[in-house]
């Protein structure tokens, strides 16, 4: 009964993904609130969450738009944040590469940090599972992520119009950023990259068109990659 085992793989994924509700709900709401307060209308806020559907990049774009950065700088910075997903795409391909093209396109469209991490973990643990079950597991994990991201954004956008300034939600965006960075500081190389990014951002603070962020990020990536290379060589 392949249909039954595909169904159970879906539910298994869904159960595994449920705890992510606790992360996606507040992030989505903060984005909705912050984007509304920054002056975007409901259609634009929802356009971001439905079409781009990538939290860190959306926050990056929003922050730079608040600072009236040039359109090109907004785009490059936000896409740079998403470049990590090239790795996710490469990691999923050995397992899902034989799925029909429309399924792979859908996998790509809803790819978050969380469904990538959980799915690859599951595929490595049970590589013998047939590919349709692997796909079902992925969309199981995705169910509490992607639709909830859109719904939470909408809630935040609607609520954002009602929340008065005393609640200091101006600072929700930096807090949301920090909440993404803290858990990502896994190794010495990650910490060195983050520290480089901070120092260079301050050094380049006078660079026009918000290009300082991009310069700082490029240097920080090189520092992180170089430290990783040296640590590997030392073994």
């Amino acid at each position, binding site marked *: 009964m392949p249909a039954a085992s595909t169904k159970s793989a879906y539910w298994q994924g869904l159960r595994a993904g449920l705890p992510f509700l606790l992360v996606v709900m507040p992030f989505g709401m903060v984005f909705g609130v912050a984007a509304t307060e920054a002056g975007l209308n409901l259609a634009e806020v929802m356009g971001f969450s439905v079409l781009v559907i990538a939290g860190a990049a959306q926050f990056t774009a929003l922050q730079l738009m608040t600072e009236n950065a040039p359109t090109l700088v907004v785009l490059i910075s936000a896409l740079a*944040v*998403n470049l*990590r997903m090239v790795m996710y795409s490469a990691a999923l391909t050995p397992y899902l590469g034989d799925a029909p093209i429309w399924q792979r396109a859908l996998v*790509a469209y809803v790819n978050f940090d969380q469904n990538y991490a959980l799915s690859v973990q599951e595929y490595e643990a049970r590589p013998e599972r047939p590919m349709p079950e692997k796909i079902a597991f992925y969309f199981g994990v995705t169910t509490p992520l992607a639709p909830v991201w859109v719904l939470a954004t909408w809630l935040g956008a609607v609520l954002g119009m009602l929340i008065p300034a005393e609640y200091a939600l101006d600072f929700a965006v930096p807090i949301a*950023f920090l909440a993404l*960075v803290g858990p990502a500081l896994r190794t010495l190389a990650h910490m060195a990259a983050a520290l480089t990014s901070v120092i260079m951002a301050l050094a380049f603070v006078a660079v026009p068109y918000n290009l300082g962020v991009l310069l700082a990020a490029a240097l920080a*990536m090189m520092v992180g990659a170089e430290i*990783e290379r040296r640590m590997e060589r030392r073994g």
Partner: protein
Amino acid sequence: MTYTDIEIWLIIVVLAIGTFLIRFSFLGLIGNRKGPPWVLRHLRYTTVSVLPALIMPLVLWPSATGGEPDPARLAAAAMALAVGYLMKSAIGAIVAGMGTLYLMLYVTG
């Protein structure tokens, strides 16, 4: 924000297409070939390289206080980072950060 409606939608649509192409890169376009290791090595550090540069000015010179450094926001940022790092928890970081901010704003009036 001083963008026209067209500029805003341009940002949204180009970002949407670019993000999709990034996510679809290996799954749909490149397939089961491996990228050069030095490229993948740089990609691992994109998040921790871009976000801190964006965060730093927001934390040091918050717009809500007219760009003046603010003890409540500095403490909130430090708590969010510390909890996020130590507990490896994004939700913990948000709760600790916003909690510290409200507490400090309440205490310092």
